[in-house]
């Protein structure tokens, strides 16, 4: 029987596994030269479309609303910062929900923490695409559309971290749900994705939606229960509006609705993390009982 490796040795190997995975993903990424070029051109086109479209929206009332609610001076910075925030949360979500479906049977017997392998697994080719996309967005938004990003804001990174925590919990929930039910989609993720672009303020200011006659109040309800709404508001306030970490804390806000933003985001993060862990544990237990943890090579 082999002796148990020391903690230092374990950490060294964990780091090695993650860097090896990163290196291999980089090899794979650069092996698709034509595809990489086409994707890069595609992303540049996309950022130009959103930037130009935002520039065409010249409405003083809307701009005043944007400054007071999001802290963004115009529609261009509103749209481009929304996409950047969204992509950053996507990158920082730690694991891919499909990992446990295919990875559990493989890694369960390794002398490793499953979580390290899950993170190493998430650092694959898709991560490179995401990083390249994000870099292009930030570069073009800054150089071509003169958007002023303040990435040094600690408050901004706190918001991204909370958003990532929520996504992580949601991913665990998806993983547990699909293990237990063998279905590819769960209702919470379905809701999250289908309502995300329209109701959370990624591209359209939510306050503009709320004023639509008849359906406006319904839209408002969806926006308010969607945790990403709070990531977008707080993210923009810190990234573009230069709000400090102290300024996004509830006591520094005067209006009542704004006071709930940060606590809601923290509560959503913790709630979904606990829900995710419980669902995943239940899903694994059930799949083991039913014998559905199949290896699909």
């Amino acid at each position, binding site marked *: *029987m*082999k002796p148990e*490796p020391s903690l230092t*040795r*374990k950490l060294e*190997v964990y780091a*090695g*596994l993650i860097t*090896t*995975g990163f*290196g*291999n*993903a980089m*090899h*794979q990424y650069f*092996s*698709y030269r034509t595809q990489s070029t086409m994707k890069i051109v595609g992303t540049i086109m996309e950022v130009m479309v959103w930037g130009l479209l935002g520039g065409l929206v010249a409405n003083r009332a809307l701009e005043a609303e944007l400054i007071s609610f999001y802290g963004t001076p115009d529609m261009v910075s509103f749209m481009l910062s929304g996409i950047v925030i969204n992509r950053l949360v996507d990158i920082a979500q730690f694991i891919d929900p499909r990992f446990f479906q*295919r*990875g*559990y*049977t*493989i*890694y*369960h*017997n*390794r*002398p*490793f923490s499953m979580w390290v*392998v899950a993170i190493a697994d998430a650092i*694959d*080719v898709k991560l490179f695409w995401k990083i390249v996309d994000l870099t292009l967005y930030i570069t073009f938004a800054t150089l071509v559309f003169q958007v002023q990003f303040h990435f040094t804001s600690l408050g901004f990174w706190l918001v991204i971290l909370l958003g990532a925590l929520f996504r992580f919990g949601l991913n665990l929930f998806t993983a547990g749900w699909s293990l237990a039910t063998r279905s590819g989609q769960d209702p919470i993720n379905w809701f999250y994705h289908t309502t995300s672009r329209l109701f959370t303020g990624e591209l359209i200011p939510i306050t503009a939606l709320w004023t639509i006659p008849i359906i406006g109040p319904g839209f408002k309800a969806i926006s308010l229960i969607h945790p990403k709404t709070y990531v977008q508001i707080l993210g923009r306030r810190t990234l573009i509006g230069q709000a400090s970490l102290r300024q996004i804390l509830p006591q520094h806000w005067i209006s009542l609705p704004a006071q709930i933003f940060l606590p809601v985001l923290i509560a959503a993060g913790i709630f979904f993390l606990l829900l995710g862990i419980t669902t995943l544990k239940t899903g694994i*237990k059930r799949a*083991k*009982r*039913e*014998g559905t*943890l199949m*290896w699909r*090579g």
Partner: protein
Amino acid sequence: MAMMNDNPADCPSSSSCGLEVENLTKLYPPVRKGLVGFRDLVDTLKGRREEVLALKDISFGVRGGEWFGLLGPNGSGKTTLCNIILDTTTPTSGHVLYDGFDVNREHEKIQGRICTMQYQFLLQRVNVRDSLRRAGAEWMLPREEIEERMNWLVDIFDMREKLDDWLVRLSSGMFRKVMMIATLMSGAELLVFDEPTQGMDVFTRKKLYQQLHHFQRDSGTTVFWTTHNLHEAEETCDRIAVIDNHLVTVTTPKKLVQEMEKANLEEAFISLLRGNKTQTRGASKGTGSE
């Protein structure tokens, strides 16, 4: 047909016994019907929901360092048994012990000691060398040891020329060899193979047995091997267990052939299971008439 065991206990003492399967039974929950579960409810009320039997009261032992074959027809429970050993399926009753630890209840104590041929090489445009290095890292091997084992195994498996090729460029037989090398690199004490030679041509298969035997003799690793290829089992396995949801026999391939008075293991296996099925049918008829 009476059950034949070369040694009823199969493992005289737990010290020499790597793996012990004790009174193992696995019943899968009934398959769910319909979308809302109404049909399930009706079936439950009518007592028609039956669990699916995969394994019934199976006991045998595998000695440390031996090549043990698990044989049986389709649906006989071979994969279920492998999955229980790997703790990806939980048994209904009974248990499997490895080195005295329950593989399902004390899994953390045997983590890293059992390996199966399951590797995930998602990055198809990465070369064999880097893929194997990554596989070695997953078993906490030091860098030098990874290189050492990789070099040793690629020579055994005749794969040195392919080390710098992308995985996507390998044939399926070659790809399986890479999986096998990755499995053997792990240094695990017990290797569980569930039909590893499926889809391989006869030449590759033959070479693989030889190479694997060579490896096993050198390393003293225990091999638990399921296969439908009985020539393969006859050539490679030190001992075999034949199951058909229940244990039919535990013996050596040679002994089974001799006792069944057949020319080879395939004929002996067919004869054994036919006799067993006739006996089972006869027994169930008898029970029904009583």
